[in-house]
């Protein structure tokens, strides 16, 4: 089992402990039985369940998501990532384990509490947008507000406000079918943000879009996220998307978490061949940062031709700055102090592909 690194400071906004999602008849009983027979071993239990005709889609998943963090769950289709986010949002009932949202156990919440949570705290964006075809853009965005019981004028005002946030001002009275895919997903994003939720679930929000539009929306997502600082769980199958927007990435395979880490971790220290295969074509210099390979020596004299590397620079730009140097180069931290040193040759070797 992969142990999660301690989450960044603050109480976890979402906390999953040993979550299982098994499909089939008598899933709960079969899972308990299999766990008993195997002594709690995850892989053996999953094998046993499959033999008995059940589908262990999510197996013993444990992780925390910190307040304000963008947590990306990434994996190929069939890896269980969509099932996991649906279990966390309790669109399906988890088979076993514990999921806490802001400390509150959501798997045992009753229908009324769940309704209240969804009305006030949760927002979700869907892969194929999930827009209501019979409602205008404004009505779609106002729908969660209507569920909250807000009056018609207020909710229209709020809907227009959110639509402006996603640059859809002027399209509020169109119907979804009259919009392009990118515009439709903007509506989806606006709707999920209308109630100003604490938690933001995004289930492959940009997968159905053209590459250009996808990049545009990713940038917009980042800018919205920078403004609002929502705790987000973001599902994707695209490693470059994950690296671009994530604070931390969890990689899933066949229902199991393979690795959790920052984008730098994933790119530079893949735990196994599966993850390495994913990151193989990733231009590492563009995603990993200098701080991940710098060292902290006792002292270092100032250089006359200091290229001015910063800790949060990507390796590509650092290498470009000190291409002609052979000496260790100082790296400056955000506070204006020297944070460490890096040898230009280390920068170069970090970029060479892993030997396979």
């Amino acid at each position, binding site marked *: 089992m992969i142990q999660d690194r301690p989450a960044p400071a603050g109480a976890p906004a979402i906390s999953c402990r040993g979550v299982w999602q098994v499909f089939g008849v008598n899933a709960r009983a079969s899972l308990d039985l299999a766990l008993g027979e195997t002594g709690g071993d995850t892989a053996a239990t999953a094998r046993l369940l499959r033999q008995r005709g059940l589908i262990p889609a999510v197996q013993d998943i444990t992780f925390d998501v910190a307040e304000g963090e963008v947590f990306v769950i990434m994996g190929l289709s069939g890896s269980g990532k969509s099932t996991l986010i649906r279990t966390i949002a309790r669109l399906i009932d988890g088979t076993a384990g514990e999921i806490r949202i802001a400390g509150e156990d959501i798997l045992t919440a009753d229908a009324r509490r769940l309704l209240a949570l969804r009305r006030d705290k949760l927002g*979700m964006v869907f892969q194929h947008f999930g827009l209501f075809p019979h409602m205008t853009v404004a009505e779609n965005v106002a729908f969660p507000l209507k569920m909250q019981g807000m009056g018609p004028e207020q909710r229209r005002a709020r809907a227009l406000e959110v639509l402006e946030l996603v640059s859809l001002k002027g399209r509020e009275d169109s119907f979804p079918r009259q919009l392009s895919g990118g515009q439709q997903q903007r509506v989806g994003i606006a709707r999920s943000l209308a109630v100003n939720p604490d938690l933001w679930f995004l289930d492959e929000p940009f997968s159905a879009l053209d590459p250009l539009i996808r990049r545009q929306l990713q940038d917009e997502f980042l800018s919205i996220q920078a403004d609002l600082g929502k705790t987000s769980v973001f599902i994707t199958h695209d490693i470059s998307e994950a690296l671009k927007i994530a604070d931390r990435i969890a990689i899933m395979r066949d229902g199991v978490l393979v690795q959790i880490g920052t984008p730098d971790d994933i790119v530079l220290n893949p735990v196994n061949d599966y993850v390495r295969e994913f990151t193989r074509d990733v231009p590492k210099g563009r995603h990993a940062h200098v701080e991940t390979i710098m060292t902290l020596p006792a002292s270092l004299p100032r250089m006359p031709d200091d290229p001015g590397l910063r800790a949060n620079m990507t390796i590509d730009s650092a290498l470009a700055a000190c291409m002609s140097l052979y000496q260790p180069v100082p790296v400056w931290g955000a506070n204006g102090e020297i944070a460490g040193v890096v040898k230009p040759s280390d920068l170069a070797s970090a970029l060479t592909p892993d030997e396979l």
Partner: protein
Amino acid sequence: MFRSLSPAIRAALLTLIVGMVCMLLAPYLGWLQKWPASMTLPATEWIGAAVTWLVELIKPLARWGAWLLSYPMGWAAFILIETPYPLVIAAITALGWHLGGPGMALGVLAGLCFVLFSGYWVQGMTTLSLVMVSVPLALFAGLVTGIVAYRMPALRRPIQVMLDVMQTVPTFAYLTPLLLLLGFGPVVGLIASAIYSAPPMARNVLLGLQRVDPEIRDAALMNGANSWQQLILVELPAASRQMLVGMNQSIMAALSMVIIAAVIGGFDDIGWAVLLTMRKADFGNSLIAGMVIVVFAIMIDRLSSRLAEPRGGHSRKVIWGLLGAGAVMAVLAARWLPAASEIDIFAPLAERTNSALGQFTANHGATLNAIRNNAMIYLLLPLRIGLDHAIVPVMWGFGWTSAMALGYFGAAAALAGWLAWRGQILAALMLLTAAGVVKLGIAHLPWPFVLFAAGALGWVASGWRLALTAVTLLGLILIMGLWEPAMLSVYLSGTAVLICTVLGGAIGLLSAVSPAVWRVVRPVCDLLQTVPLFVFLIPVLMFFQIGEFSALLAICAYAIVPMIRYTHQGLSSTPEELVEAALASGANSWAIMTEVRAPYAAPTILLGLNQTILYAFSMLVIAALIGTTDLGQQVYLALGQGDVGLGVAAGAAMAMLAWVADRLVQAFAEEKRAALGL
């Protein structure tokens, strides 16, 4: 050796052997052909007693409901009949304008003027008022049923079975228990039509709800909708397109049933007008009344199918203008225009049609009779009672001799041997079986053979389960004592289906090859499918009088449509890529048709055959009105005598036959689809 044969060949071989044994033993063991009366369960009496008991139980409630319903019915009739007709015409035309713009408005106006001039305005409006009341009932019942089936998956299967039954039980079979329950009166037709037209709505509601994108459902939940809000605010509106399709089908079914319900008589509606004029052999008028029905059907179909399409905003001013014009005309009408019932502009036309028809039959009566008699003697009778009974000196000029039998079976055996030698063992076995069937006649087939053959077909098509169900259902018909009329039903519908398959298949093939042909065939198919069953009887009666041949023609005219449609659809929907691949391999157009298009279309064509069978069965009951002897006739007789037991039992037997045929063909279609990986 036997084990090494394919399952289909094994089944066919066993069926043939069973058939031969039965044929050889039949002369000595009478019970092989005729199920002994001593073994017959008095099922009709039991059913009659049970239904009567049930009817007595709920009678007070039902009568109270009927009494309640008579109010809206009265109001609807009052509104449509007592309102001056210019206003009614203006209002319906305005509706046409609102739904479909100028074209639709003009069509509606023309249609209504035709109804007015036909002299059947009052009768037409009576029918419409019944539809107006029954449709909301059906739609409501259908909506609720559909929602329940959707929301409670445990009930979905039983509900679907119930809907199947409601639609396969012949229309007349509804009427007998309802008559007992409600007494004579228009309410019977109203309720029957509400029951009959609810299933399409329920099906489409369920289908629409099931087709709602799961993400939309999830989105509603995540946005904080509770389960009712999810249903009413999101799922139902998202399914509305499909529900409107269901509404269109429901309305058409209601119209059809209201007209059929006229056979119980007692109120002056358009169905009654057709029936009455038909009985008086006043075909001119019956044709005009029939055309009034057709006009209604087309109008209602076009109007209600527009509901499902998005509407451009047609000016409201026109609506008010139309209504105003109608009102002005109505005021004038009080002074100048004649009353609706006094208009008979088409009366001379009916006269002339009658005399023309009289002349035609006088001149060509011999030809018509020859057509009918030849078809009877050389096709229908042999199929029905077998070659040995049909070939008698009176009709054929010679009798059936054992030498002929020898020659007949010898020829069949030779042909089969040749086929087997070519490697077509299955075809050879089926040819021999068919030869035996034609010799014996469908109505005289030994029951063990029929049961075994049905079981074998079920087993080959799908497996033991289907085989067992088919045998059980047919066995039930046997012990209920309804075997003879049931086999007559099989004979009549089977013959019709055979003709439809050959003819419809050919027309479908032609339409697929030539778009020009399709342009002609398509509107004819549309028309034939919109016309209520009843109307099909008029033209065949005009030319061929009452009898089995007329019934056969009416059945064929109605049941051929799906065969044409599905054949065309199947043959012309082959993926372009496959055709191009065949072309690139050097296939000519004939090879493309036989090697690529036909195999690809096979499952679709089989579904067409399935529909054709079901259509034939539903027409069978209507055809009882013009002289048949089968189950449909039993149902119709039961209606006349108020014999609930016979009515329900015969109706159930028809439904069972239809069910068996339906499942067998569907199973084969499914198998073919699976083989093609579709």
